[in-house]
């Protein structure tokens, strides 16, 4: 159990930049270096995690921890990955707070805002590419994206309602091909 904790703490503290690097490190430690799981087990767990709500990598850590060490493995894996990373995130936020009022920080924010906005747009495009179907069916999928965009942009309707309606619509009409969005899901 201590070895498992070490692996997930290492992933939580060494993976800079988000989902892709977390995924790569998990695979490197658990499949290639420690041989705790087979390539197939890892890939299957990742495919299942894309169906989970929230942060898919938390679901992945939980599933892998459970497969390796049962219920205690879930706790060790999730806490090992998330608590150190969250502590680093909180410390960085506190450090930024010390200079947030300075002119240089405000100028940096003027550049960070469009950068994060653009990254959000880029992620949305990755998500669409992973989830949309092909041929004429893609038209329906793109229309759904456009409607969700328009609702948030031009109305005061709840985003939750948009997701619930779209998920219901999807369950009824969009289920002919499975979605495959490894990159978008890794976020």
């Amino acid at each position, binding site marked *: 159990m201590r070895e498992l904790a070490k692996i997930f703490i290492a992933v939580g503290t060494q993976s800079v930049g988000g989902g892709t690097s977390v995924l790569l490190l998990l695979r490197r430690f658990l499949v290639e270096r420690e041989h705790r799981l087979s390539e197939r087990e890892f890939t299957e767990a990742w495919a299942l995690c894309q169906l989970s709500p929230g942060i898919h990598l938390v679901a992945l850590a939980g599933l892998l921890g459970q497969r390796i060490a049962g219920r205690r493995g879930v706790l060790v894996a999730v806490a090992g990955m998330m608590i150190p990373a969250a502590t*680093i995130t909180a410390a960085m936020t506190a450090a930024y707070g010390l200079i947030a009022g300075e002119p240089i920080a405000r100028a*940096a924010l003027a550049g960070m805002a469009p950068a994060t906005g653009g990254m*959000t747009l*880029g992620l*949305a495009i990755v*998500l669409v590419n992973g989830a949309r179907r092909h041929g004429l069916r893609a038209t329906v999928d793109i229309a759904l994206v456009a409607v969700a965009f328009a609702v948030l942009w031009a109305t005061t309707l709840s985003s939750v309602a948009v997701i619930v309606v779209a998920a219901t619509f*999807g369950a009824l009409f969009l*289920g002919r091909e499975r979605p495959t969005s490894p990159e978008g899901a890794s976020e």
Partner: protein
Amino acid sequence: MEPLQLFLVLLKDSALALGGLGSLPLLRQDLVATGVVTDAQLVEALAIGRLSTGPSGLWVVSLGYQMSGPLGAAIALVASSLPPLVILPATAVARRWLLSVPFAGLVRGAALATAGLLCATGVSLIAPAGDVPSWWQVAVGIAAAAFTYQGRLHPAVVVIGGAGLGILLAR
């Protein structure tokens, strides 16, 4: 915002989102539109989430810290870690249903709607309502979208690059 209320908002928005950034449009509607946090705080949290270690969904921890200090960060950590774990009992009791055609459609519908909501949020971060962005801010937004889509440049580099351009051009 009271700790319990903060926990419930973060839990709800995480539970209804797909992926770590999927909760962004929901949280913006719940927290920015109601004046609890500002768009600037949201951007700072997103940037720190990209620069920090761990899943990028931890930007919520940065937001929680800005709202209520270490307690807010802890609340955000717990609230964003619980919903994904629903996959554990779900795979145990309903693995076949998770792999069914209607469930695939449900996930696809939610993913496409999330993409649309993220598009609207991304555009409004580049060009906030009632505010005309500079040419260089539009260029930064387009470049960041392209780099993220291609996936070749590390996200932290994109954020640092944007901050550097801001320091050069916005002062």
